[in-house]
């Protein structure tokens, strides 16, 4: 943990006590709205990110629509993951990381001084490339975030755990062994448990950093189907190197590219545009496999 993080976490610790009182019940949508009435939820305005003096990406202006599944594609080092970590301010963990420009989530200014980071991260869940269940039992993995936010009644937590495991299609596989270590599950099951762990807090946005790339093809397919089912209920932003996957599941897509070592947003739009009628030469080259 870097020096910056410590200061950060110290502030945040004080805030967590307050946050329960002014918790806004955002949560997932009650009904699955048709995703694609373009209603922007996340807005980036000339957003740039620097590690020390080295830019990761520069000048990204982009809107991500509510309830849609948006894919970020592009070669390695083009700033996709860096962009993703801005959305839940995981960038705070990196010493010397600076963010310039505007980023808003609804009417919340993500990088404002007074933003309650814990509250932000409750609303913006994240799934990592490598499944990272905690070294606890399956049940405790899911109980932990609930308890953190004051849901301690056993009946209520049990109900939420069952419901969420059902949502990710894991309930039938683990219902009679909730108390075994989560690390004994297979890779695909672990990743679905991680998704459940993020969903159990009823976030509004889910960030996914290549969630299938560490899994075998079969598990990858199961997780992909699960992600596709989240459309409409959550706003999903997914980084993927798998173009076919992006095309299969995403509503919107964007292409990041590296220019002189700096990531840039080249083109964004509906998946049909990116994959069928790309406006930019680089996009055409990338999706057809000529470049990248």
């Amino acid at each position, binding site marked *: *943990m870097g*020096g910056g993080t*410590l200061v950060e*976490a*110290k502030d*945040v*610790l004080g805030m*967590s006590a307050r946050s329960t009182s002014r918790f806004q019940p955002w949560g997932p949508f009650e009904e699955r709205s048709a995703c694609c009435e373009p209603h922007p939820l996340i807005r980036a305005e000339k957003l740039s990110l620097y590690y020390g003096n080295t830019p990761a990406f520069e000048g990204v202006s982009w809107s991500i629509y509510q309830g849609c599944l948006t894919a970020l594609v592009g070669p390695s080092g083009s700033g996709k993951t860096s962009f993703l970590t801005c959305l*839940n301010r*995981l960038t705070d*963990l990196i010493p010397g990381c600076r963010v310039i420009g505007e980023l808003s989530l609804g009417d919340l200014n993500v990088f404002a001084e007074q933003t309650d*980071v*814990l*509250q*932000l*991260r*409750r609303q913006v*869940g*994240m799934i*990592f490339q*490598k499944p*990272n*269940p*905690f*070294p*606890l*039992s399956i049940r*405790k993995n899911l109980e*932990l*975030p609930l*308890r*953190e936010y004051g849901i301690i009644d056993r009946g209520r937590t049990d109900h939420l755990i069952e419901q969420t495991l059902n949502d990710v299609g894991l309930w039938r596989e683990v219902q009679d062994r909730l108390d075994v*270590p*989560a*690390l004994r599950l297979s890779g695909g099951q672990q990743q679905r448990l*991680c998704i459940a*762990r*993020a969903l159990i*807090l009823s976030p509004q946005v889910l960030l996914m950093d290549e969630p299938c790339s560490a899994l075998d093809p079969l598990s990858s397919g199961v997780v992909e189907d699960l992600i596709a089912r989240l459309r409409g209920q959550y706003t999903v932003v997914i980084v993927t190197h798998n173009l076919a996957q992006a095309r299969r599941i995403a509503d919107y897509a964007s292409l990041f590219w590296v220019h002189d070592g700096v990531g840039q947003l080249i083109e964004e739009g509906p998946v049909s545009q990116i994959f069928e009628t790309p406006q930019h030469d680089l996009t055409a080259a990338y999706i057809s496999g000529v470049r990248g």
Partner: protein
Amino acid sequence: MILLPNITLSPSRVDQLLVWILQGLAAFAGILVLLIVGFLMLEAFPAVRQIGFLSFFSDASWHPVEGFYNVMAMVWGSLLAMLGAVLLATPLGICSAVFCHFYAPTWFVEPYRKLIELLAGIPSVVYGLWGLVVLVPLIGQLHPPGPSLLAGISILTIMILPTIALMADASLAKVPSVYLRGAIALGLSRWTTIRCIIIPAATSGLSTGIILGIGRAIGETMAMLMVCGNVVQVPTNLFDPMRTLTANIALEMAYAVEDHRAALFFTGFLLLGVVIVMVLAVDYIKQRHTYA
């Protein structure tokens, strides 16, 4: 070079030589332990034969000249001093490591760690001397006579604190950062993260630290001899003087002959037994609480 237990995949002569050398060294280390245990048994055997095994636990008292060999008072002395020290030093040591990793300002961590390492390097006779001239008179003012179980526990706590703190420090550093990132992305507070994820993930290293602490505490001779008063009695409160098994051996070995000498070897053997039991107990607790 790839070695499987019975197959050497690399057939070179040098390799075979290396295997022999390594096998020889490993055998030497193993045989050394067996030799020491064997020697202890050989020297203690006359005592068991002449005095009788049960006499060590049922005699009226420890008066070797008159032929009374009850060691229970000293077993209790050793156990109580060790337990007291471990109970105090374990939370202190773990707190010290947690502070180092998660709360201390960056500039403070390295000097602090160096100080703890220095504490680990101070010879026990120096602790004993300090205990004798500073601590014992202080306790004497509080509640005479001064040399006491409390003095022993205090000195032992200070002596094993650095061992436990340094081991805890190392094991916290080994907790994979993905757990930390996962916890932060979930919006868990720092305290919850430490308590529910980091500490359980580090259990194995933490208990190794405790085992080392136990070994050092029960084996400590010089400092205990200097501050505990060396009266052979089961201490009934913290201010009673008492004698440990180790101090007993050190005090009487110089003039002990025949049965008395063998009885002292028997106490050495007993010491070994106590350490083995404690190590197995910690191992058992560790296995029950590890999910990794």
